[in-house]
């Protein structure tokens, strides 16, 4: 369960006068469930990339329970992300040719941490998300099933932070609802802080806190944080 303490985050892209992202201060409590909303281009993805260490923060402090991502090199951020962040993306990113089970295990295997316990947990997670045939090749699953496999994959290493980037946007309503249920249930079961980037009002409505971005700034925060 991770707690965020962020300050002085500013991201600029070359050729643009206005910063793509400018957040003076943001605090997310451990175990909280937060929705990040905003029109496209409002800086949601840029924020997520910064929060999970995909890009190197410059001049900012992004402190997750004592680990400041700004002080870590690329390899260290990769390791930190692998260990602490579960990631669910809009278009699943399952790897064709591998079974559902192998897809769940792949990141752990590439990081050389997949042991017997890990395998057991992967099988249990697949059962939990309702995938019965764990040996089925990923590309033959339905879209709803694919996203459920992706959820299982995100939770394999019991991450302190679960990030879902538009997890329901490419699913029909029923599948979307099922995936939303899973995210909420499994995040609380694993004790993960949950961050969801979404336009889906039904999903956002089920989260305790809602941060709205516009033009790279926080324009509304239901927790009453001060917009920078």
């Amino acid at each position, binding site marked *: 369960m991770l707690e965020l303490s962020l300050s002085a985050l500013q991201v600029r892209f070359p050729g643009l006068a206005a910063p793509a992202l400018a957040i003076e201060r943001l605090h997310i409590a451990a175990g909280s469930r937060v929705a990040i909303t905003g029109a496209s281009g409002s800086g949601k993805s840029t924020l997520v990339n910064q929060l*999970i260490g*995909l890009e190197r923060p410059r001049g900012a402090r992004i402190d997750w329970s004592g680990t400041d991502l700004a002080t870590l090199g690329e390899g260290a951020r*990769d390791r930190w*992300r692998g260990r602490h962040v579960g*990631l669910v993306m809009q278009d699943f990113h399952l*790897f064709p040719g591998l079974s559902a089970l*192998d897809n769940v295990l*792949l990141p752990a295997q*590439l990081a050389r941490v997949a042991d017997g316990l890990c395998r057991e947990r992967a099988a249990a997670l697949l059962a939990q998300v309702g995938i019965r045939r764990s040996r089925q090749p990923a590309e033959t699953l339905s879209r709803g099933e694919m996203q459920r496999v992706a959820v299982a994959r995100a939770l394999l290493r019991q991450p302190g932070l679960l990030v879902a980037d538009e997890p329901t946007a490419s699913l029909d309503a029923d599948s979307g609802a099922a995936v939303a249920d899973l995210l909420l249930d499994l995040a609380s079961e694993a004790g993960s802080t949950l961050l969801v980037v979404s336009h889906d009002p039904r999903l956002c409505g089920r989260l305790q806190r809602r941060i709205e971005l516009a033009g790279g700034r926080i324009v509304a925060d239901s927790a009453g944080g001060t917009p920078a």
Partner: protein
Amino acid sequence: MIRFILADLRRLWLGALVIVLLVALASALGVTVTLQERALRLGSARAADKFDLVIGAPGSDTQLVLSTVFLQPAALPLLPGEVLRRLAADARVAWVAPIGFGDSFFDNPIVGTTTTLLRETTPGLAAGRLFAAEGEAVVGAAVELPLGASIKPMHGLAGAGAHVHEALSYRVVGRLLPTATAWDRAILVPIQAVWHIHGLGLDEHDEAPAGHEHDESAGDQATDAGHEPVAQPAGSAGPAAVRADADGHAHAHLDAAAPLDESWRLTPPGLPALLVKPRSIADAYRLRQAYRNEHTLAVFPGEVLTRLYATLGDARRVLALVAGGAQALVAASLVLVTVLHVGQRRRQIGALRAFGAPRAAVFAIVWSELFALVGVGIGLGFAIGYGAARLIAAGFTAQSGVVLPVGFVAADLLSAGWLLGFAALLAALPAALAYRQSPAQALRG
């Protein structure tokens, strides 16, 4: 990771196959050139192994070697028979044997020689016995004639304006064990018979069997005009007789039952070549010195072949350059293909990174995929190259009788190592691209 790589290759099997084949063909080209050149060198060196010193009439030393060692048909100038007699009496000579060409039977050259040469240069008989009379022949291991078969020699090579010596034939009495040389395709007959067929005699007397005491100078002349043309029914094996053909050329019959004389007490007629076995290496050099003059040409076939290899080596270098060029082209196209491929997989690679896969793992995946393909291709290329060289060698053997030993040597391992090392470097390029790629940008793209 292995499973991920395998799944990836299975998914992209067609592209993978094309890459493997491209690499395989490019490396096979180089392997074939190397193996073939080596086999040709070894095979011809082996073929010349028993030919210590060859003496012929002045002319091309290369042609002399090609005609004697490889039995390549060519009109060689004749050497005076006196040379044979002198060499036979020379203390520096262990043995000397005449080699007479000119006739053939279908594709097989007929070579006139002596039992001494057969005994000294071949591993022995597989069946039958050596010839003991003028009308008998011994066939090389690759001649497809059974014992007892009769052979009507043709003057010249079939298909090259040859004509059949109508009225005479040899009977096969023995078959030699394989020697892996051009002589395996030869039909070996007594040189005495060749002389008689072409109207060249050891003596002037039709009825006199060879070995008679004679005036030694009598046989010195070629006897084109020395005989009366006598009409003779075709196929008869009567006493030696001469018959004029359309060219006004005189041909004689041989007496199939006439015993052989290999003592050279009589001065033999002209000869295309002599094979000499010196008693020692020093003798070999002395003999070559002595017979290298305006009347005779003495060569060490090994030396002439070495000179030929130098030429062959130049050809090999050209071929190797061509093969190297093909390999470079394939390498360049591989780089292009893989760089494009990595570009197409940006998102996938970005996702792997986003899920926490270490950069080293991403590098390893891309590198091993490509290296595995190129490695398999190189392995396959060596196999194909070996097979191709074997095929070419087999074709060469079928045509010339010379067996070309195709085989790898330790140096080939080294060149395979170089190729693999180069492949490893090549594969590192797209892997480095994947390594350096920012996952956030890749996912956005």
